[in-house]
Structure formats: C-alpha cells, structure tokens
C-alpha cells in the first residue's frame, strides 16, 4: 500500500490486555497490577496510545478468568472502552465481546452506544466462546454430539453462528434510517415509522425481530474486526468483518495468510470494501540491542513457560521492529496490531520509539486527520441497507 503518509504508510493498532500479553508481565518492574481494575490505569494506556497517533486500541474480554500468571479476571471491555471515550479524542476504541452466549441485540446497542459516546470511534471484535467451561457460566447450552472434547460445538458451527450474530448486529445498526427522527410538530410525530425497519432475521441459531432501540450510530456501521485463527474464522471474517487480524509467523507466512483472506472473500462472494488486513505481533521493545530478548527470557523463566499463543513474538529495538514491519507490509497488509508483552513498558516502546522511527521513514502519520475510525481505515460511511428504495422489499421494511 502506498501513498498514505507521503510514502509507504502503515496502520498501527495496539491490543491492550491486563498487565500485558506475557503471562509473567505482572512481575515486571514497572507493571501496575494493583491498578488493573481502576479507570486511571486504562485511561493512562489509552492516552499513551493516542499520544503515539495509533489507529485504535483493542480491549480483550473473555467469559472466563484468563489463565495468565497470578492475575485473574478482567473488566467488561465495552464498558472499559466507553470509560475511555471522553478522555480520548481521536483513537479508535475496539472492545471484544462474546457472541456465542451473549445476545446479539445487547451487543448491538452496546457498541452503538459506544459509537455515540465516542462520536464515531467505535469498533468491535466478536469472539467465539467454544469452551464447555464458559457454557457452564450460563447453564443454557450443552455440548453438541459433534463437539470436540471440552468444546460445545464444532469450530465451523460456532463461526457460522458468530457470522449470524454479526449479521443481526449490523442489521440492527441500520434498522433506524439516519433521518428517522423527524420532530414534525404539525403532525405530532417524533419519528417517521416508515424509516424504522424490522430486521426479521431468521437463522438456525436464533431469530431477531428488531428494530433496534438505539438510533443509527454516528459511523452508520461501527468497524467490525475478527481474529482469523482457524479456517472457519477466515470465512467468518470474509462474511462479516471490516478488519481481519492474522497471526502469521514469517514473511512468507504473511503472504500466504493474506492470500487465504482474499480467497475467503471470493468464496463468500463479498462485495464492497475488501477486508483491511492487520498482522498480530507480540512485541518486546528496548533501546539496547539484545536487551528485549534478555528481558523476555527472564520473564519466561519467572513464568516457567512463556506466551502460549500462536502469535509471532518480536524482541529487539524499535529500528529492528520498523524494518520488520516495512518488510511485512509488502506482503499485502494494511497494518499491524501489536500486543505489548509488558504494560506500560512495551506500549511506550511503540509510542515513543517505534512511532518516531516510522515517522522518520515517512511510513506513519504525524497527526490525526480523520475524526471517525471508519474514515481512518479508508472506509466510507455506508448508506443504510434499508435506506435505498430498492432495499425496502429485501429488508422486511416496516
């Protein structure tokens, strides 16, 4: 991708998770485990990311305490994102929610409300909760006959259900036309009910009638992002997402993963905007060559293991990381989602070391220009699916 920032340009997001992505992050010297459940902790991180002009932050969530080190438990990600909205002014806010047990209707109004509170900076990462343990927290679903051990259904089924949830959420966002509120004193009508739409979604997993109780959010459609970590997840992303996160482990792997994304888009018959493709990278950044690797090794030792996820780990200096990002970008990526190994250390490594290095190379913005997250990612504000006259017959109009 060229021309974004006067040269090759890339987009950068940061994934916030607890005290960092390394399971022993809480034992790092500048970690703030005691503050993890305070608003100030999250506000400091988000403001730091915004200081670095990053595109957006993602906020993790799961329906079970995270099995990482001593620290267990977390906060509801949509509410954390909402708490950050008034204390930031530009950065995108992308919370994770479950879509396996959680009601699509609740998710839809929650993310729409985040978009209102942030004036158009909301995104969302729908997450499949496959485990029987999570299902036990709800007590409403038993494992299906075809489910692998410890899981409630096949990966394919769970991703198909997640795609239906995204479809419902998106229809609900569109279920109020932008001009549904008319305040027409002459007829006493606040709403034009012809501009409100039943979504009448019917699927194998659930039916949802609509319309939403929340008007169409500022972006029309907040940015939907999906982590593609399995073949069904690629299909899920191709069907319903705007942004996909990949977890390749090399330059060649990156190219192959991007090709799989494009193939999944073609197979899904995706029209409109192509997926924005971000590669995930777990990063440890220090100024002195070799220092980051030593730091990570020490954490691995404290933990007894190390990061368990499939995401590629980078250790090194900001210049080395900038080299790697520029090289990988050519494989067809939009940008990267960096997962700091330790917070706040590796976040400030990104914002105060990596970003200035990329700016020197003309590869990253020097100021925020766009006001909404969609615009920052080059996505236009879409016309609502029920707005065009022709759509009235397909959308189950009121």
């Amino acid at each position, binding site marked *: 991708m060229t021309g974004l920032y006067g040269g090759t340009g890339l987009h950068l997001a940061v994934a916030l998770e607890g005290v960092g992505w390394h399971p022993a992050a809480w034992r790092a010297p500048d970690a703030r485990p005691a503050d993890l459940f305070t608003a100030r902790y999250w506000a400091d991180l988000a403001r730091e990311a915004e200081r670095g002009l990053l595109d957006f932050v993602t906020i993790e969530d799961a329906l079970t305490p995270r099995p990482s080190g001593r620290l267990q438990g977390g906060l509801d990600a949509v509410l954390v994102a909402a*708490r950050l909205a008034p204390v930031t002014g530009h950065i995108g806010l992308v919370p994770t929610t479950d879509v396996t047990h959680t009601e699509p209707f609740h998710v839809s109004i929650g993310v729409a409300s985040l978009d209102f509170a942030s004036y158009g900076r909301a995104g969302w990462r729908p997450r499949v909760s496959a485990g029987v343990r999570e299902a036990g927290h709800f007590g409403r679903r038993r494992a299906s006959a075809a489910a692998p051990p410890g899981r409630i259904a096949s990966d394919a089924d769970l991703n198909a259900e997640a795609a239906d949830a995204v479809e419902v959420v998106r229809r609900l966002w569109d279920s109020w036309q932008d001009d549904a509120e008319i305040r027409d004193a002459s007829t006493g009508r606040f709403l034009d009910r012809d501009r409100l739409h039943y979504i009448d979604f019917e699927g194998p997993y659930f039916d949802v009638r609509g319309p939403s*109780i929340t008007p169409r959010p500022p972006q029309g459609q907040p940015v939907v992002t999906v982590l593609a970590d399995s073949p069904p997840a690629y299909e899920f992303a191709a069907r319903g997402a705007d942004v996909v996160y990949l977890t390749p482990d090399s330059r060649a792997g990156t190219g192959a993963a991007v090709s799989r994304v494009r193939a999944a888009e073609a197979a899904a018959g995706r029209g409109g905007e192509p997926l924005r493709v971000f590669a995930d990278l777990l990063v440890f950044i220090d100024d002195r060559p070799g220092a980051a690797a030593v730091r990570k090794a020490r954490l691995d030792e404290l933990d007894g293991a190390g990061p368990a996820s499939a995401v590629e780990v980078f250790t090194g200096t900001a210049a080395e990381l900038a080299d790697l990002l520029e090289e990988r970008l050519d494989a067809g990526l939009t940008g990267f989602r960096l997962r700091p190994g330790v917070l706040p250390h590796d976040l400030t490594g990104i914002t105060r070391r990596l970003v200035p290095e990329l700016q020197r190379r003309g590869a990253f913005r020097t100021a925020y220009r766009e006001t909404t997250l969609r615009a920052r990612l080059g996505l236009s504000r879409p016309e609502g699916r029920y707005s065009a006259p022709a759509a009235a017959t397909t959308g189950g109009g009121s």
Partner: protein
Amino acid sequence: MPVRQVHLAAHFPGVNNTTVWSDPASGSQIDFASFVHLARTAERGKFDFFFLAEGLRLREMKGRIHDLDVAGRPESLTVLSALAAVTTRLGLAATVNSTFNEPYEVAGRLATLDHLSAGRAAWNVVTSYDAFTGENFRRGGFLAEADRYTRAAEFLQTARELWDSWSDDGGAEGEFAHSGRHFDIAGRFGTPRGPQGHPVIIQAGDSAEGREFAASDADVIFSRHGAPAAGRAFYADVKRRLPRYGRHPDELKIFPAVTYVLGDTEEDAAERAADIRRAQVGPETAIAYLEGVWGRDLSAYDPDGPLPDVEPDLDEGVSKGRAQFRGDRGETVRRWRTLAADRGLSIRELVIEATGRQTFVGTPRSVADRIDEFVQTGVADGFIFVPHLTPGGLDDLVDHVVPLLQEKGVFRSDYTGTTLRDHLGLGPPRGAVRRAHAEAVS
C-alpha cells in the same frame, strides 16, 4: 425527632409523552452531550444518583411503531460508564432487565461499572415476560408472567453470590456454583469485587410481589407515589415489610418519581405547568392515550370533542411494550367518564387532567418547603426527578431549589463520601445475610 435528610436523584427524560420534544429548548435525546449536561447538572446539585431507564423493544400501538413520543436510547451501562469519566461523585444507576439477561454477564458488567466509577454503580432490577420483547432475543417469550419475580429474585441472589465469590483482599478468586430453579451455573466469575462490594440495588415494581422483593433485597425503591396520601400509604406499607427480613426500615430508601415546574409566583408556575401539560398531550397523543385505555382504534374521534360512547375492548389491547396500560382498564374508563361528565372535559382536556400532573408546582421556596415536608412526614426518603426537557430540564431545580434545601439544612452542601452507598447512608452489603433470609422465605 431529628430532621431527616432529603435524597435527590435525576432521571434522564423518558420515552413517553411527558418528555416534550416540540419545545425549542428540547435537544437531542441520544447525543452524548445531552447525557453529560444532565449528569453534570445533577452532580452540581450534589444529587445522590443519575438514573437511566431501559426498554428492549420500541413501543407499538395498533400493531405499528408508536411515533408520537421521543424514542431512541443508548444501552444504559455503556453510557453510564462513559459518564463516569465526566463526573466524580454522582451515583450511576442502570436499568437492566432480569428476564432477557444472564447473571454471569450482568454481575460482571455491574462490577465493572463499580470499578470504573470508583464505587458509584447502581442496578435497577426490572422484569419483563412478554413474548413481544422476547422477539428480540434468543429465547423468545420463555417466561410465564407468574415467574417474572421468582426469576428476578434468584437472578439478584445469584449476582450477589458472584460478587461475593471474590474477597475484598483478593484471596478467594471467583469460584462459584449456584443451582436453583432458574439458574444452574458453576465455574469462575471473571471480575473482582467492586469498591462497593455490591452495587446499590434499585427496584421499581409496584405490585405486592414487587414490594416484597424490594423489602427483602433492595436498597432503593423507585415508586410512582409522589402525592402525599398515596405516598404515605406506600411508604408505610413497604417499610413495614422490612423487619421480616431482619432489616431496619432505613435500609431501604423510598424515591417516588416526581416532576416539577417553577415560577416567580404560584400563579405563574401554575400557568407554566398548564402550558407544559398541553405540550405533553397534543391532539394525536390524547387519542393515542385513549386508545391505550380503550383497547381499540379511536382515530375517528375529535380530540376536542367528548369521550367515545363505544365500550372499551378489554381483552387484547392495542398497546405493546408499555407498562401503564396494564392496570384495570375497565375501571379507568368508568372513572374517566365520570370525570369528563362532571367537569365537561373534551378528550384532550380529560387526558391532560387525568394523567401525569406535575408533582411540585410553585415558587422555588414553596417547592423546597414541600419537598422537605414530604420527607419529614413519611411520604418519601427522597425523590427522583423526571425532567420534561432534554438536556436543560434539571437546571432550574439545581439553580433555585437545591440551594434552599441546603439553607434549610436538609440537603448536603457537598458530598461527604465517595461511593453511592455513602451518599445513601447504606452500610456495606450484607450479601451472605440476605441470602440466608432469601432461602428462609423461599
């Protein structure tokens, strides 16, 4: 007898005809700036809390979406979490339905709001059972009407168990198991205990079951009875129920929903109140209101003419998603006919007269005096004010009435604590104790 302190709360203007949208001063009901203005005004007035209602399906009349009233609201917990960033002491009360939610998620979200607001979260536990709302959810209309309070009570009990699954010192970490009629769940709860331990629990139902639920397990009851006689009867009835649950009457605060209109003189206030009532009940709204009670199409009737002579249809009804038409409609029709005949009222005049009259109308001085009097004489512990305008509807109250209450020594001149439990004078939650009682009575 010592002077009782007044408590004050603010309700974001609702989605019914009492919220006037035709006034030039009426702003957006969905722009975040409107929420910020109202919340900051309430905090400037040292209010106990700011309250958001919820409705999980747009209301319908005669099978079509009701289009006369303000509609379009955010998800309450999300907007309250954002408001936690622009306020520092104000309690933040979310209405969250116990029918179309699950305890694990709701308990986690409320604990999160309590953390992110440093101890200011409250939960108004509401119920619904209708298949109409259920059409927006996975299970549809699964719950029988008779079970809505048994589910709500077990929902709250389960949420308390989840909050108690973490200890304040971080020792116990979330192990839980609950097996009951409505919920059979086990595992690990994901969110540590919030600063308040448990958020403040609000209950709003008016039925005998609702009152009993509030007496057994709520901290605040949000009532409809702001008029002196009805308020005193309600207050006495609810407070009388507390000792049965081992609770002191002061452990449940009674907040009637009230409205107000101020003027320079009593006459000026009365005139303004009448103008607001006419704006709240336009010709179309008068007919729609009547249709809600009559249960049939009355669009052919003249709002400035007499009441319909046709009999009401008491079976089906035309209004969905709206609580106020669920009473005894036959009795209401009889009462309204008598009132209209005695006073020679048209349809619109009747609806204006019979519904939603303002609670406090007068000069700032007389309104402050009556608020104080009501609290000293057992009508209420405090009031939740429902403004008729967004976002400026509390400005007058905070600028002109609150200072008089402060002068009288019956309302705080500043916050003395940091949490909502502090503002309400509630002690730490007694989760384990309450659970023991709940088990004893179930």
